[in-house]
């Protein structure tokens, strides 16, 4: 069996395992095995890639030993670093970590394009060259853009960076990149000088930075998902250039899946993708704030806990603040006390709770909350009317009724959890601050709402104690 045949078979096997693995990942019951299946596919494909050793071009043969050592070293360092960093990253930091790994994939696709474009020998058709350029462009944007997204979510870059005429600047840089790319492909026929090729990549990287810098933290999940789709497309295109069907299939599957996921996320936030990229939430405090009637009424954690203990139905609306306070374990302990006492408890998850869709589910799963207690917004929103108590922990914008009524509010039109319809609402929060979007929350001033001030973890401990002492003393 020739090495090339082995490579082809392994690529076919890998493509199958990727699709089958992704399919299994789409249900919580089989998801775990799905990633393992896909992982086996990756292992097979990477090991088989060493068989390229037996078929390199004549020109590359003198460098073969060096190149093989370089490949093994790069593979070792890359896998080693990623394995270590992936094992130790906290669940709350997952979105930026995914952004980082994704950017690396985009960079790898751009690197493939760069090596192809630097080759002075070989015949390049116009089509493969244009595809190489497009793949490189998308990959490079994904690399630098994802790095900015990572830095922003990780708190390394704060605030948004906006200047006058930014759209014009971004547009000109993009146009310049495109012109240079088309020059390399169609005028120089792939034989442009390394300086020109270098300039093309530099501009593409700069554009990725320019495009991401003005986007605010709340919109970052959509951006990460978009770059995920970008990297997929870039990989697919470079796969065509290398005539590698496994790259083409895997890249395009992710490209389309990522695009759909991006649209779903943008829809959940009631924003269009174009809106996210080209305009942003106004700076906090600038918009006209409607007069809010009523006052914020505080409540003791213990009283709230006992009220919930004697309720028949409690719905919990958790937000990112819960995870920041590392209170999800204590929360679940409290929930178990309630369910033991016969209270029906449900978790209601807003599509953008956490830092990206589904992030809150991961954080609750980490605390051991079974997934059949967790409900998506559209499935549970009708039940708030029947709930005796709704408790909001570390969430703000996703429960703000202004999204339904106040047209001047920047979050107007965003679907929200109907916690205000419950008989009694408790909001656990640190202080009287505003949400991520910088909007005051009308819910906190409502008649049926009481605020439990304090660190979420301390509040949960107090609640657990209140219920325990009640049940312990009662018998």
């Amino acid at each position, binding site marked *: 069996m020739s090495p090339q045949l082995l490579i082809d078979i392994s690529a076919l096997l890998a493509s199958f395992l*990727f699709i089958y693995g992704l399919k299994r990942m789409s249900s*919580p019951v089989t998801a775990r095995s799905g990633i393992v299946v896909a992982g086996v596919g990756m292992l097979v494909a990477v090991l088989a890639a060493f068989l390229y050793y037996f078929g390199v071009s004549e020109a590359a043969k003198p460098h073969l030993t060096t190149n093989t050592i370089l490949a093994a070293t790069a593979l070792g360092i890359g896998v080693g670093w990623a394995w270590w960093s992936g094992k130790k990253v906290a669940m709350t930091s997952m979105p930026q970590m995914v952004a980082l790994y994704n950017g690396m994939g985009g960079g790898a696709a751009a690197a493939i394009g760069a090596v192809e474009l630097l080759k002075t020998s070989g015949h390049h058709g116009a089509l493969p060259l244009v595809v190489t350029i497009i793949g490189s462009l998308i990959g490079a944007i994904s690399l630098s853009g994802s790095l900015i997204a990572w830095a922003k979510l990780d708190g390394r870059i704060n605030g948004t960076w906006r200047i006058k005429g930014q759209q014009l600047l971004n547009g000109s840089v993009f146009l310049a990149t495109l012109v240079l790319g088309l020059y390399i492909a169609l005028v120089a026929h792939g034989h442009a000088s390394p300086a020109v090729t270098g300039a093309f990549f530099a501009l593409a990287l700069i554009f990725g930075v320019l495009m991401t810098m003005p986007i605010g933290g709340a919109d970052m999940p959509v951006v990460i998902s978009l770059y995920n789709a970008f990297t997929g497309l870039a990989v697919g295109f470079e796969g065509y250039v290398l005539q590698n069907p496994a790259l083409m299939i895997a890249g395009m599957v992710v490209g389309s899946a990522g695009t*759909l996921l991006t649209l779903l996320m943008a829809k959940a936030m009631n924003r269009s993708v174009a809106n996210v990229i080209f305009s942003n939430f106004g700076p906090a405090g600038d918009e006209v704030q409607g007069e809010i009637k009523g006052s914020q009424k505080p409540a003791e954690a213990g009283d709230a806990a006992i009220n919930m203990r004697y309720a028949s139905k409690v719905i919990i609306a958790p937000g990112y603040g819960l995870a920041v306070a590392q209170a999800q374990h204590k929360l679940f302990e409290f929930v178990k006390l309630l369910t033991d006492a016969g209270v029906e408890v449900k978790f209601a998850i807003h599509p953008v709770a956490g830092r990206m869709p*589904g992030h809150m589910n991961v954080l609750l799963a980490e605390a051991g909350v079974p997934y*059949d207690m967790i409900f998506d917004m559209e499935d549970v929103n009708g039940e708030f009317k029947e709930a005796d108590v709704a408790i909001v922990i570390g969430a703000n914008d996703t429960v703000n009724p202004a999204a339904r009524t106040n047209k001047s509010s920047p979050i107007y039109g965003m679907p929200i959890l109907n916690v205000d319809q419950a008989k009694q609402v408790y909001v656990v929060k640190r202080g009287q601050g505003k949400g991520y979007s910088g909007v005051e929350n009308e819910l906190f001033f409502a008649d049926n709402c009481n605020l439990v001030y304090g660190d979420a973890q301390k509040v949960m401990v107090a609640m657990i104690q209140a219920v325990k002492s009640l049940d312990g003393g009662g018998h």
Partner: protein
Amino acid sequence: MEPTTVITGFVALYIFMLAAFTGYEIIGRVPAILHTPLMSGSNFVHGIVVVGAMYALLNATTVLEQAIGFFGVLLGAGNAAGGYVVTERMLEMFKPSDKKKS
């Protein structure tokens, strides 16, 4: 080496089209609770780019190509390995409720 498979423009379009539908169909029916792990999982899948980067590096002829190729394999390997580890960690935590306990 010259690859044995020759994928012309139209065949490439067919492959891309079918793969795009596949991706769309897989994600379209996914419950929102799995969106984060799935984004991470699809992020892992495009880590296959490392294979292309290895091809580029093994066929490199100049120091510049070697440097870029090395960089590509390094990044691609990080994408694949990192994507796998974090996806596996997240999915491992999804468990149904234990009926016996309640």
